[in-house]
């Protein structure tokens, strides 16, 4: 996907010259408004999309050219006509009354230098063009050409409902071509290795369906057929660390647990175990749980990172050098002997950050912990010595989220500087920089195959980036507020996103389409998680509830025929009520994190807030 060429900022600002007489702007706008309101119903919804970007651009032009009084009256007259979901932007705009104010505001600068994308059917477009090219409306036509990008599609004009589902982002919708690149959303093949059988009574997963025999069997998890999945990336597309012995042991444990996993569904909902953080005084800012659910970490506003052991086994650190010299290195249980029992505790506190900790992430092998903070650094902590190893400096502004890759070694971070960065633990500088968002990157997640990274941003879009070359391969618009949670489905095909607007949106990555909308929450959704086999989607929000949704039903029967893929929109069924399997209230604890254990028990975490 070609990077949009960005004109030099100052050139664009200076090119913001008069498009006609400032005192007539109100007339231009109201003339257009009149035209659109009198047009046919089928066209009106589509053409109404023009109101907001035109309003903003005309207002900013008046401000830039220092026609303050005209700008003010223009704003007063027309700001009430805009859609409700733009209210936050309008409030910011109302405080920009002078040219000097514009210079410091990066988001507004980006808004002006990038073209607002509108998707309009050909019929509606012809209608608009004919009207605007008449002599008296030429000014608006100039503005439209200057600042708007109209992506024309052939087909039926969209209804207001369809449009409302897709709009809301700071830069309009996504161009169709932005979502055309091929994405390898399949999973990587798990390596085959022998699973040693014990005498335990397990119902082994045997692919061929043959009765289990008492001999070591090859258990190839995930590769149902020997052929390469065409949607899966080649194994060596990006370099991944090799599996160590401990990783293999972990995988064996994982498979054993998977065999005992509860099959979830509408008839069989998971039990939810809630971990409430008491006495956090609204300071809990980040939570993570290890994959095997043995440790939980909390990042706090007082800049500490606290690690707790969830199991009865205490957290132990490695002994000091003096003690280590005394142990017998040849003994079988040397790995136990190097651990220090005297300082074992359920809680370990890690000090180091100089600002609130906004994101935490355990490594898959449970050796490392990452934390990112308002101080602009991402810190790597060792979970064997409970000390800080590295501070990765690159974002010089608050870092809002970080996550380890599912295979370890790589991690991603996103922050206030509007970019996400890909790091490797052994490089002090980032390997990739993912630039393109118009506002802060608030949420970053790896795809299960570690080849792609999804970033959610305060500009209300989600972008999918290719780790190999840093290109943006998907842009998803539709949320009406900053995105705060992302979750990939375990099969890698779908993405669920949650934002401050209380909606969970479901996306098909391969086709680049929105395929579902789950309404129900009334406040920001901070936690989203699919169950281990993808049957249930759990969402947790600031409205103190955890909701469970039927993911299998949400993703079946997708109309992904050529038409919808070409136009990029789909008719969303109003089935939120059908998909909602349960709503679970907490007393007064917003839900910050969700985690399905390997056996499909749902763990939730949040801090008790007394109001």
């Amino acid at each position, binding site marked *: 996907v070609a*990077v949009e060429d*960005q004109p*030099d*900022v100052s050139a664009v600002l200076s090119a913001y010259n008069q498009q006609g007489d400032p005192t007539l702007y109100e007339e231009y706008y109201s003339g257009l408004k009149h035209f659109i309101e009198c047009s046919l119903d089928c066209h009106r919804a589509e053409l109404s999309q023009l109101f907001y970007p035109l309003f903003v651009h005309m207002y900013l032009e008046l401000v830039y050219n220092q026609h303050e009084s005209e700008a003010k009256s223009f704003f007063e007259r027309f700001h009430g006509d805009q859609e409700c979901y733009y209210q*936050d932007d309008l*409030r910011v705009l*109302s*405080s920009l009354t002078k040219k*000097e104010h514009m210079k410091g505001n*990066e988001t507004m*600068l980006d808004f002006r*230098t*990038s073209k607002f994308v509108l998707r309009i059917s050909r019929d509606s477009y012809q209608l608009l063009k004919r009207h605007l090219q008449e002599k008296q409306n030429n000014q608006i036509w100039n503005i439209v050409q200057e600042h708007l990008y109209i992506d024309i599609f052939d087909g039926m004009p969209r209804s207001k409902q369809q449009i409302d589902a897709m709009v809301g982002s700071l830069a309009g919708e996504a161009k169709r071509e932005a979502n055309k690149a091929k994405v390898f959303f399949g999973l990587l093949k798990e390596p085959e290795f022998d699973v040693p059988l014990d005498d335990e009574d397990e119902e082994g997963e045997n692919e061929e369906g043959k009765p289990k025999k008492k001999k070591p069997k090859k258990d190839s998890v995930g590769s149902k057929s020997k052929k390469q999945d065409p949607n899966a990336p080649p194994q060596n597309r*990006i*370099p*991944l*660390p*090799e599996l160590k012995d*401990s990783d293999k042991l972990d995988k064996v444990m994982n498979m054993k647990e998977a065999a005992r996993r509860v099959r979830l569904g509408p008839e069989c909902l998971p039990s939810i175990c809630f971990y409430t953080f008491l006495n956090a005084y609204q300071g809990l800012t980040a939570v993570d749980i290890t994959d095997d659910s043995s440790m939980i970490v909390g990042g706090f506003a007082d800049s500490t990172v606290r690690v707790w052991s969830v199991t009865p086994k205490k957290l132990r650190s*490695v002994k*000091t*050098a003096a003690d*280590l*010299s*005394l142990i017998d*290195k040849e003994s079988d249980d*040397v*790995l136990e002997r190097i651990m220090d029992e005297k300082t074992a505790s359920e809680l370990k506190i890690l000090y*180091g950050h*100089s600002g609130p900790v906004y994101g935490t992430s355990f490594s898959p*092998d449970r*050796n*490392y912990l990452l934390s990112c903070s308002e101080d602009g650094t991402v810190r*790597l902590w*060792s979970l*064997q*010595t409970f*000390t*800080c*190893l*590295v501070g990765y400096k690159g974002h*010089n*502004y608050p870092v809002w989220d970080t996550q380890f890759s599912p295979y370890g*070694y790589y991690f991603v971070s996103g922050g206030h500087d*509007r*970019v996400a960065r890909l790091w*490797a*633990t*052994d490089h*002090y500088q980032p*390997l*990739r*920089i*993912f*630039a*393109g968002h*118009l506002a802060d990157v608030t949420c970053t997640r790896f795809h299960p195959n570690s080849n792609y990274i999804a970033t959610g941003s305060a500009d209300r879009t989600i972008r999918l980036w290719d*780790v190999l070359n*840093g*290109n943006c391969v998907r842009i998803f618009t539709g949320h009406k507020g900053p995105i705060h949670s992302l979750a990939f489905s375990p099969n890698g095909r779908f993405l669920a996103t949650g934002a401050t607007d209380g909606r969970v949106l479901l996306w098909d990555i391969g086709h680049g389409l929105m395929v579902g909308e789950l309404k129900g929450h009334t406040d920001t959704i901070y936690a989203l998680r699919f169950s281990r086999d993808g049957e249930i989607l759990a969402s947790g929000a600031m409205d103190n509830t955890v909701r469970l949704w039927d993911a299998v039903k949400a993703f079946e029967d997708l109309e992904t025929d050529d038409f919808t893929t070409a136009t990029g929109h789909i008719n969303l069924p109003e089935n939120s009520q059908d998909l909602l399997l349960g709503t679970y209230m907490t007393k007064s604890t917003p839900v910050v994190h969700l985690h399905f254990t390997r056996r499909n028990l749902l763990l939730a975490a949040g801090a008790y807030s007394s109001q």
Partner: protein
Amino acid sequence: MEAAKMASPKSAPKDAQVMAQILKDMGITEYEPRVINQMLEFAYRYVTTILEDAKIYSSHAKKSNVDADDVRLAIQCRTDQSFTSPPPRDFLLDIARQKNQTPLPLIKPYSGPRLPPDRYCLTAPNYRLKSLQKKVSSSAGRITVPRLSVGAVSSRPSTPTLGTPSAQTVSVSAKVGTPVSLSGQRFTVQIPSSQAAVKTATPTTPTVQNVLINPSLIGPKNILITTNMVSSQSAANEPNPLKRKHEDDDDYDNL
């Protein structure tokens, strides 16, 4: 308790009322009452700083009064200094393009904990203890020189690595004459009780005395456990012994 002390909105000073109105206009409806005080303090401090700067500029330009241009200049200078904003988009796209062109580096297998070079880690000791001037005879109890990590050294290559390569660090004093390479490999150092060659792989005693290390013992095959003796959670991001200094060995008691 706060509410009792705070003036009710009707009788609050004019400034506070204005501030409350500003917050309301910006859409902020829920806030602690102290926020208004903090905002007023900030506004006062900012305005006085700007006006002071403007006075300086105006007197420099030999004007009798402070006028709008001086204030504008003062604001501009302060903005660049205190209120920095993230880089502009075109700059970010540019550096992203550069960074993304280089292919992802290959990952070396079996290299232990994958950490950046030690200069960029926070694992080095960041304090030194003053050495004791009094020379005590070697048999008279412990003299700890805690700069070195103590462990058993073994020159047998078959020494097993213990389980998962741990993220433990080694803290080797900068005083050691040998430039010790720590990249990716962790090893222990034996503290010999004499300055003589320490080729014997004797188990160490807890008493640490001399710190001269024979470099021949330190090799890539001696990969063992080490421990972090230093609390490395300090915010000192510039650890002192970044470079291995070849310092005089006077501080060490040669026993």
